């Protein structure tokens, strides 16, 4: 069963992707999504891609601050005066 008879199960699974990865689903919804994922490689591939995408976005978006800025921030300390 899972997801009810009227709904395209992959469509429903797509809707659950973000709350699933954010761990925002109830236990019942989570179990339902996992049951579908166990038997559906179409959705499974897309879930894994999303998970990896999030990791990659986090890594790719990082730009470190320059030592110059770090120094400037440190000089703003009021306790130095």
């Amino acid at each position, binding site marked *: 069963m899972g997801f009810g008879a009227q709904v395209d199960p992959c*469509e429903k699974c*797509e*809707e659950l*992707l*973000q709350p699933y990865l954010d761990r*925002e689903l109830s236990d019942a919804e989570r179990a339902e999504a996992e049951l579908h994922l166990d038997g559906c490689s179409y959705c499974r*591939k*897309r879930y*894994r*891609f*999303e998970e*990896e*995408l*999030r*990791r*990659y*976005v*986090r890594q*790719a*978006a*990082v*730009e*470190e*601050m*320059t030592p110059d*800025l*770090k120094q*400037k*921030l*440190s000089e*703003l*300390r*009021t*306790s130095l005066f």
Partner: protein
Amino acid sequence: MGETTPEADPKKLAEEARDRVRFEEEALELADQVYRVARRLVSTREEAEDLMQETYSRAFRAWRSFQPGTNLRAWLLRILTNLNIDRGRKQQRSPDLQPLEEGDYYLYNRLEEAGREPNVEQERVDERLSQDDVVAALSAVPHDFRDVVVLVDIGDFSYADAAQILEIPIGTVMSRLHRGRRILKRELADETVGSV
């Protein structure tokens, strides 16, 4: 005896000085993490650097209003996001209310259609999307959505922290995050496969 005012009490003054030094040290230790978020909230490095200096200058002046034991990183980012809005960033009248047809599988489906199906078995998303693609796509997400995506997905803040930082209800955080991520994926698809 007992006539000294709190301001003149040397013991209290010393305690306050110690607290202030500790606050400033802790705030500076968080600067790298605050900057990573700041950098993606604005378009250029110069803007991010100005914003950081303004934020830290204000935080150091207002250190007494920070409640010890609460989340200092969130407190700093609350100052920063408020300053960013005050600085007159380009505001959308109402944030991207056009219907968004694309679902959460959109980017994967577009890559697959273009014969660039991601090899999830090896988990190599970076073979399909470059760092520049990600940066460009993020900056194309409208501000209201980007703020939430950056705080949660890059800053690693909880929904509750993001709600507090941006002073919006948690339900709004969730809906903007959901939509913001979809817009990000649409932008990534346009960047890498071309717009439809």
